[in-house]
């Protein structure tokens, strides 16, 4: 790990001793800074994935264009080898002068985030009762209104579910960045392993797992607060 920056952490630190030490949290190498690093990258990945996939999948499903093989996409989304993909991209990124970071990991994570969002949006809109859509058309809704006021409205909870799955996966995978020349919250596991410091390894694991758990929880609470009752009750058709 010679090329990688190392955090100035004492050897053989106790897990909780280190976690509860305010000094561990502050500073440019502190937990808060690493956390921000991770959260920003994940947030950008999620925004890009959502703003591309939701319109694309809605349009495909609304116009019934291109039969999408859903089961094939599910398989694919489970099978993307993020570490290998990022590993392939690092040399390419460097040769193009984009540096170690964050392009390779960004693209690898994006590949991970796209399928669940696409799939949930696509299947949710396809599953909207054709009778309801016809009724809307019969009442004089324009196609745009049909899509936005009926199909997307009814599909909201399922789409949000896809976004949640994508976000949890992205946050859970992002720590490999620390092993691919970057930092982020995974750095403490890396540093702990590099220094043969089990306490730091476990503390780093707790941080990483904690963020993933927090992400899952916050999506759950968003779903229960933000969605109208009638829509939430429709959330039984998630693809996972």
């Amino acid at each position, binding site marked *: 790990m010679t090329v990688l920056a190392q955090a100035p952490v004492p050897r053989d630190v106790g897990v909780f001793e280190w976690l509860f030490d305010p000094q561990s949290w502050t500073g440019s190498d502190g937990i808060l800074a690493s956390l921000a690093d991770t959260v920003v990258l994940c947030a950008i990945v999620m925004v890009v994935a959502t703003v591309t996939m939701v319109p694309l999948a809605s349009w495909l499903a609304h116009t019934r264009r291109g039969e999408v093989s859903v089961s094939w996409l599910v*398989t694919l989304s489970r099978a993307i080898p993020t570490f290998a993909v990022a590993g392939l991209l690092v040399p390419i990124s460097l040769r193009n002068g984009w540096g170690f970071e964050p392009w390779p990991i960004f693209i690898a994570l994006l590949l991970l985030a796209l399928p669940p969002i696409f799939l949930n949006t696509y299947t949710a809109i396809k599953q909207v009762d054709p009778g309801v859509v016809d009724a809307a058309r019969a009442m004089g809704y324009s196609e745009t209104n049909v899509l936005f006021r009926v199909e997307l409205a009814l599909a909201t909870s399922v789409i949000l579910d896809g976004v949640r799955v994508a976000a949890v996966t992205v946050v859970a995978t992002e720590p490999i960045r620390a092993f691919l020349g970057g930092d982020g919250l995974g750095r403490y596991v890396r540093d702990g392993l590099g220094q043969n410091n089990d306490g730091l390894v476990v503390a780093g694991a707790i941080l990483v797992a904690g963020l993933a758990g927090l992400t899952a929880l916050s999506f759950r609470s968003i779903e229960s607060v933000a969605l109208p009752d009638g829509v939430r009750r429709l959330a039984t058709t998630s693809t996972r």
Partner: protein
Amino acid sequence: MAGLLAQATNPIIRWEYFIDEWDQIQRALIEHLELTVYAVILGFVLSVGLSAVALRYRWSAGPINGFTAFLYTIPSVALFAILVPYFGLSRITAVVPLAAYTLLILVTNFVAGFNSVSPEVREAAAGMGMTPARRVLHVELPLAMPYIIAGLRIAVVSTVGLVTVAAIIGQGGLGRLILDGLRRTFWTPMTIGSLLSILLALALDGIILVAGRWATPWAQRQKSVL
């Protein structure tokens, strides 16, 4: 800056490496395969048990699904790391998390597979005097097979991908080539490790696909009818 320049001119693949380091590549490939197979076998065995419980005691299906889904959302870096204090940088530390990640997909598919057997078919099998063991072996298992195979494919392919991550704890087969290349700013092993792990996943997927087709002739024919 001079360093970055050197990195930029370093070719992505240097073909002599294949010959010079063939031993190392081969070892990494075999280790990768071994870790994958051990993890999937362990995951498979555990999934058979969990699925049997979930199918036998319906109330347990929810908690079992919740548990496997929980395991699945634990970041791989964290799960590998958390076992280091107990098992060190050993194969167990790599295989246990890898197996844990297969549980969600395997149990889900096993349960779905057995639940897909229609009540009429079960009734007919029982009604003609098949023993319970025969019913499971000759009727339910073959009918669940397409689901089992589908689950196995995803489990194997995603495990091949995850094995590379186990390189962070000194295991990881082809993943080690990736990390090694990264450390030495030498792109050839990195590219080879990444490409080979993707190819390995595709190859194993193809093998299971073909084996599955062979094992479930009726399901293939149905697909072609649709």
